[in-house]
């Protein structure tokens, strides 16, 4: 059955605390952290972008399991912050891991769910035997305008998944999507920062689509929330996934391992994939995982996953850093350094 062959994550080591951002804007940090459930977020180094993060994550995936890069027939990178508007990030990744030239590649954009859309594409190509392995990545150096609510959470990071049907460490048994034309969050060509509809991003955006896809999947898989060991929901903050989990009937324990946003922030296209990776880091054979992403604009992809014996026998999880390891030992930066790292200081134009 089609599933995850291996996976890898990369998170930059720098962090900025919500207090530090709030200090600059004269906002109440305790109130913001309390409301969002986010306390710090990752910050890329000056020379890190969605492409370097995608490469690091892909390399970490390949460190865990010997996959011949030449057999990776497709590379799809989902991001809101592809370094080029025209010129694919996926080619850079393919080249960096040695998968070129016998492969197909493309960049994906679907706000925060482009990474899970890439997984679905690879599943289709593998199932139809067009390729042996596909590499699906969600990676972002998320943008949030200075002073905007997004700035407290927009973080950097990504996760890579090799999809195939050759002894997967976890089978993807079912997937369902729920998509509508809902303008809750957008960024036009040439604009540096996304804009959003405030409270409109909640009920008609996140909750409608996450619940829509989740219910479709549960119905299709003929399962209830109780049938899953773990659950991962898209996490733009901690409040939304906690509320949607509760509304759907999942428990706080089920979502705990995959809820990385309080210490990581929102890695946009990386968010659900990193949450799933954190869950795979601790999963045992036989565990079942429910995943539902969300991308503004808007849509959700839901997955029903079963962890297999291969997670114990076929890969070496400790050959690459776990999400927990990547979150440890951060280097904190102040707002000035953060502004420099994020290119918010324009020195010459």
């Amino acid at each position, binding site marked *: 059955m089609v599933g995850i062959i291996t996976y890898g994550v990369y998170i930059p080591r720098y962090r900025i605390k919500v207090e530090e951002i709030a200090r600059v804007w004269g906002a*109440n940090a305790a*109130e913001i952290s309390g409301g969002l459930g986010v306390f710090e977020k990752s910050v890329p180094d000056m020379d890190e972008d969605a492409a370097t993060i995608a490469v690091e994550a892909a390399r970490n995936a390949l460190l865990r399991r010997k996959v011949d890069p030449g057999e990776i027939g497709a590379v799809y990178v989902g991001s809101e912050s592809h370094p080029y508007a025209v010129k694919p990030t996926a080619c850079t990744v393919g080249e960096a891991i040695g998968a070129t030239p016998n492969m197909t590649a493309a960049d994906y954009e679907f706000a925060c769910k482009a990474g899970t859309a890439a997984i679905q594409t690879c599943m289709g190509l593998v199932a139809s035997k067009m390729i042996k392995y596909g590499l699906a990545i969600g990676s972002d150096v998320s943008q949030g305008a200075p002073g905007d609510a997004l700035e407290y959470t927009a973080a950097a990071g990504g996760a890579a998944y090799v999809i195939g049907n050759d002894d997967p460490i976890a089978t993807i048994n079912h997937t369902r999507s729920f998509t509508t034309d809902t303008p809750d969050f957008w960024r036009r060509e040439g604009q540096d920062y996304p804009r959003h509809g*405030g*409270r*409109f991003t909640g009920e*008609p955006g996140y909750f409608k689509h996450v619940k829509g896809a989740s219910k479709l999947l549960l119905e299709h898989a003929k399962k209830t929330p109780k049938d899953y060991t773990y659950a991962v929901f898209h996490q733009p903050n901690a409040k939304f996934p906690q509320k949607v989990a509760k509304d759907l009937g999942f428990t706080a324990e089920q979502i705990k391992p995959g809820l990385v946003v309080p210490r990581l922030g929102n890695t946009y296209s990386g968010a659900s994939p990193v949450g799933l990776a954190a869950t795979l880091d601790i999963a045992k054979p036989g565990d079942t995982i429910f995943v539902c992403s969300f991308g503004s604009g808007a849509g959700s992809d839901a997955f029903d996953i079963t962890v297999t014996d291969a997670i114990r026998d076929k890969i070496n999880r400790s050959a690459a850093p776990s999400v927990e390891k990547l979150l440890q030992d951060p280097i904190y930066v102040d707002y000035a350094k953060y502004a420099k790292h994020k290119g918010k200081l324009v020195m010459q134009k």
Partner: protein
Amino acid sequence: MRDVAVIGIGCTKFGEHWERSFRDLFVEAGAKALEDAQLSGEKIDAMYVGNMSAGRFIEQEHIGALIADYAGMATRHIPATRVEAACASGGLAFRQAVIAVASGMEDIVVAAGVEKMTDVEPGASTDALTGAADREWEGFVGATFPGLYAMIATDYMHKYHMTREQLAQVAVKNHFNGARNPIAQFPQEITLDTVMRSTMVAEPLRLFDCSPITDGAAAVIVAPLDRAREFTDTPIKVLATAQASDSIALHDRRDISTLDATVAAGQRAFKMAKLTHKDINMVEVHDCFSIAEICAIEDLGFCRKGTAGKFTADGETALGGKIPVNTSGGLKACGHPVGATGIKQVCEITQQLRGEAGKRQIDGATIGMTHNVGGTGATVAVHILGRL
């Protein structure tokens, strides 16, 4: 002048109606009011609609015609008129309908109010609402409504030594009532702590001192009293309709913590109805901010100037108190779709007088009052309604 009665009421749920449009909302409220009056649309002679700023909120003007059209009345070519007086638009639409019937010009008239506020981002709605103040002398120099009412609150607290906790009790009481109102946007009870720990908006006003941004519509149908029993067994008589104006800018007022337009409209209404504040069983006042309710109950004469904080904290304005205020939950908990608020107040008092207010019912209520304010008090509409 002919006596006038309310023969039908209808209200949408108040809240964030993301999936519904401006016209969906007023059609629902109008249909409910017609159903309540067991009336078919052909009987309607005219319509008045209170709406503050559809131009800014949904880029639609010409609301009178739009409403007549979508209510299915355009083919009968009935007169349909939009009335605008900022947040008092609904109260004035009701007054226009009452005057039209009282004068003998029309018989069966709809007074509606509607606002769809959530289609724009919060900054845009704040700015649209600022149009209710003096744009040149207040808006252009950065004043917003929370800011202006914060000045009223600061002045009031300085003069009368009302405590912050007493002010917070307005919101606690209104949320208690709102939790008993099926149309309320925020039907949750809160504690004093909820208010005191909420986000500071404009000192001393916190988030829970402020009414929300709301979508909603309300409609009432009025008719000559002598025909009212054709449509309902419980007609509610309009005992008084009064309106007053004041300077549009807060700083031009004689006293910024007294709304002289409220005082004037209240006195006119009592005189017209030949009643005093002691005859009123419950009142819906315009609590766009907690301080506004404090000023309103004093300016209408329910308690002495400077004492409304203690009066509220002592429970005199709660259900079962001396004068229950905002049994609907008020603008704070029921929500404040600005153009609809004045009509919703009439719906609430009508429900109370008919004995249909469920868990928030005031037993034996026979006379109720509504108080609807535009801006910081530049327009005020007061109505007194009574059970026959």
